[in-house]
C-alpha cells in the first residue's frame, strides 16, 4: 500500500510539473505561448534486417529471428521546468506495438548542497550500461547478463540522490529508493517491498587522453511472499519471505587523443553482475555473468566493435527468472550461455548510424549464427549523451 502510494505520488508530481502551465494561474501569462519555451523534441528510429540460421522451434528469441524489423521508435522531450528543475520524458514502441512510457523524470538544477535529486520512472544507476537507451548502445541488443537479471533493464519508479564527494578525483555516490516493480527481481506485494540501490562511480584522468572509470553497485529488495507469474518453489511456506540481492562492478578504460579525438578513439568497457535470492533464510547459488566490449574508432566515420558476454543461471533460480531468450530447456540442470558479437559501424554524423553485426550465440547445447544490419537515425534536438 505504502509502496503504491509512493509510486503514485512520484508519478503525479512529475506529471503535475509537466502540466504546470495548464493550471490556469495568471503566472502562466509571464511566458504566454512563446515557442521559445517548448521542450526539445527528438525522434529516434531503429530499423534492422536480420538473417539467422536458428530453426529450432523451442528457441524463439527475438534476438534470433530473421527478417526486417522495426526495432524501436522513441520520442524524447526535455526541458527545464523552471530555475530549480529539469524534466525529461521518453516514449517508445516495442517493435511495432503502440507507444508506451519508457521514462519520465525530474532532475534538480539547484540545491543548497552538492546533491542532485532525480525522481520519476527512469533507468536506474546500476552500473553503466543500464543507463543507455537502445539507440545509444554500441550493439543491436543489450548484453546477455542485463537481459537475464533485469530483463532487459532496471527501469523503475524511483527516487535517486547523488552526491559529489569532496575528493581530488571524480567520485559520485548515489542512493536510490526503488518502487520494486522489476518482474525478475521484485514484484513484491508487501508495503515495505522497496528496492534499495547504492552506486559508487569513480573516474580518474590517467593522462589527458586516457580515463579510467570504476564503479560498484548494490541493489537489495524484498519479493515479499509473492506468488506472481513466476511462482516460487513448492518448498516456500506461507509467510516465508524472498529477498533479491544484486551487486555489480563496472570498468571503463577510454582513450581519445586530444588533437585528433574526433578521428580515433578506443573504449574498453565491462561489467560483472551477480544476483542471489534469499529464500526464507537460505541464500541461493548466484545467477551471474559479465560482458566485455571493445569499441575502436579508426576513422572519422568508422568503428570496429567486439563484445563477449557470458552468464550462468543455477537451476534453483529458474522459476524466478523468466527466460528472456525463450529457450525451452530442462530447468533442473541450470543454464549457461554466451554470445560473441562483432560489428562494423559507419556513422556519417551524430544523427545517423549504420551497423553490420554478427552474433554467435550458444545456450546449453543450442547455438545460432545471426547477421544484422541496423539503421539508427535521430531527428530533432536530442540531449547530449553522458560520458
Amino acid at each position: 500500500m505504502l509502496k503504491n502510494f509512493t509510486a503514485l505520488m512520484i508519478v503525479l508530481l512529475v506529471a503535475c510539473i509537466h502540466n504546470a502551465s495548464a493550471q490556469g494561474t495568471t503566472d502562466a501569462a509571464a511566458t504566454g505561448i512563446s515557442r521559445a519555451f517548448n521542450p526539445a523534441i527528438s525522434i529516434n528510429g531503429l530499423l534492422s534486417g536480420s538473417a539467422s540460421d536458428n530453426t529450432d522451434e523451442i528457441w524463439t528469441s527475438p534476438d534470433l529471428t530473421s527478417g526486417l524489423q522495426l526495432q524501436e521508435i522513441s520520442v524524447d522531450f526535455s526541458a527545464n521546468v523552471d530555475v530549480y528543475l529539469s524534466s525529461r520524458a521518453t516514449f517508445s514502441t516495442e517493435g511495432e506495438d503502440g507507444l508506451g512510457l519508457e521514462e519520465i523524470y525530474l532532475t534538480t538544477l539547484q540545491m543548497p548542497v552538492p546533491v542532485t535529486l532525480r525522481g520519476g520512472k527512469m533507468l536506474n544507476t546500476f552500473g553503466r550500461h543500464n543507463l543507455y537507451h537502445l539507440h545509444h548502445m554500441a550493439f543491436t541488443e543489450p548484453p546477455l547478463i542485463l537481459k537475464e537479471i533485469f530483463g532487459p533493464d532496471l527501469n523503475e519508479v524511483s527516487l535517486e540522490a547523488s552526491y559529489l564527494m569532496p575528493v581530488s578525483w571524480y567520485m559520485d555516490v548515489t542512493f536510490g529508493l526503488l518502487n520494486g516493480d522489476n518482474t525478475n527481481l521484485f514484484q513484491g506485494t508487501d508495503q515495505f517491498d522497496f528496492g534499495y540501490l547504492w552506486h559508487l562511480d569513480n573516474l580518474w584522468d590517467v593522462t589527458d587522453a586516457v580515463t579510467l572509470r570504476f564503479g560498484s553497485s548494490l541493489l537489495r529488495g524484498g519479493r515479499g511472499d509473492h506468488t506472481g507469474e513466476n511462482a516460487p518453489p513448492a518448498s516456500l511456506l506461507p509467510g516465508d519471505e524472498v529477498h533479491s540481492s544484486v551487486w555489480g562492478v563496472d570498468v571503463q578504460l577510454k582513450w581519445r587523443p586530444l588533437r585528433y579525438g574526433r578521428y580515433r578513439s578506443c573504449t574498453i568497457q565491462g561489467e560483472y553482475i551477480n544476483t542471489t535470492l534469499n529464500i526464507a533464510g537460505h541464500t541461493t547459488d548466484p545467477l551471474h555473468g559479465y560482458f566485455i566490449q571493445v569499441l575502436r574508432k579508426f576513422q572519422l566515420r568508422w568503428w570496429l566493435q567486439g563484445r563477449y558476454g557470458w552468464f550462468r543461471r543455477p537451476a534453483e533460480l529458474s522459476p524466478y527468472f523468466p527466460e528472456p531468450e525463450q529457450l525451452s530447456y530442462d530447468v533442473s540442470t541450470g543454464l549457461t550461455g554466451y554470445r560473441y558479437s562483432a560489428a562494423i559501424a559507419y556513422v556519417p554524423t551524430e544523427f545517423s548510424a549504420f551497423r553490420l553485426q554478427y552474433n554467435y550465440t550458444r545456450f546449453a547445447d543450442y547455438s545460432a549464427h545471426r547477421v544484422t544490419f541496423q539503421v539508427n537515425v535521430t531527428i530533432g534536438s536530442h540531449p547530449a549523451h553522458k560520458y
Partner: protein
Amino acid sequence: MYAKAGKLILLCMLLFTGVHSIQAQRLRIVTTLPSLASITEHVGGGHVVVNSITRGSQDAHYIEAKPSYMMQLHRADLLIYSGLELEIGWLPLLIQGARNQKVAVGSIGHLNASAALSEENVVQKPRGEVDRSMGDVHPLGNPHYLLNPYHGLKVADLIAEKLIQLDPSHEQRYQQNLEDFRRTLQSRISDWERRASGLAGLEVVCYHPHWTYTLDWLGIINTGYIELRPGIPPSPKHKMAMTQLMQQRDIRIVIISSWKEPSKAEEVAKASDATLVILPGEVRALGESEDYITWIDYVVSELVKTASGVVTPGRHRHRRQQRGTL
C-alpha cells in the same frame, strides 16, 4: 630535539594555512577555451586562478563531457564560456553534473563571453530556416569570434566588469590590468594590420568556416570551403570542383585548423599547386601561441609568411580593384 621538531611542524602549519588562505582569496575561474583563459589571466592577474576545460589542441565543437571537467566546475567561482552554441553539446551536462550553484545558468558566476558582441559583430548567422541537411551550422552565428582581436578587447572589458562585480575589493587592480591589456593589444593590432596590409584582397580557400573573423578583419577573401557542408568531409566531386575553382582563380593558399585531419585539404592543395597552411585553432594549439596575443601574432605571421612565398605582389590588389572593393 622535540622542541625543534615541534617548531618545525608549527612553521609548516602556519605556512600551509597562509598559502591556503591566499589561494582561498583568489577567484577560481574555469573557462571553456584557452583563449578565454588567457584574456582572463591578463585581466585578473594575481587575484585569479584560471583553468581552461579544453586544451588548445582540442576541437571545442566535439568535447566529451568528462566527469573530471565537472570537478573543475564544481570548485569554480566563475564560469566563462564562448557562447553562440559552440559548447552546446557538452557544457550543459557539465554544469548540471558540477552541482555548483555559483556557476549555474542565471547565477552571478555564469558568464557568456559572446554577450560582449553586438548583433553586427557576429557573422555567418543563417537567415531563414536551418536544418541538419546544411551540416553543423551554428544557428546563432559563427562562434570563433575571438580570432578578431577587436573582439578580444570587448571580451576583456566584459570579463573585467564581471571580476569587479565578484571581487570589488580588487577593482583598481582589475581596471589597471585591463588598461595594460588594452594598451598592449591595441598596439599589437596596429602592428598586425601594418604587416598584413598587403593581404587585403587576397583570395584563399579554407577547410572549415573557422577563420572567417580573421579573414574579414584583414580583408582576405574566402572563396570557398573544402568541407561539403560545415562539419561534413568533402566528396570526391566536391574536391574536384574546389580544385578547378582554385585553378581558375589562381588561388594559392588553403587554410586548415590544427585539430582537423589534413589529408583531404592536402589533396586539394596539391592538385591546385597551392600551399596548405595549418593554423593553431586556439591558444597553445601549436608552437609559439602561448597566450591570446602570441596566438593572434602567430596566425598573422603565418598568413603573411605564406602569402609572401606563394603570391605575386600586387596580383590580389588588382583582383580587389576588379571587385571594386579597394
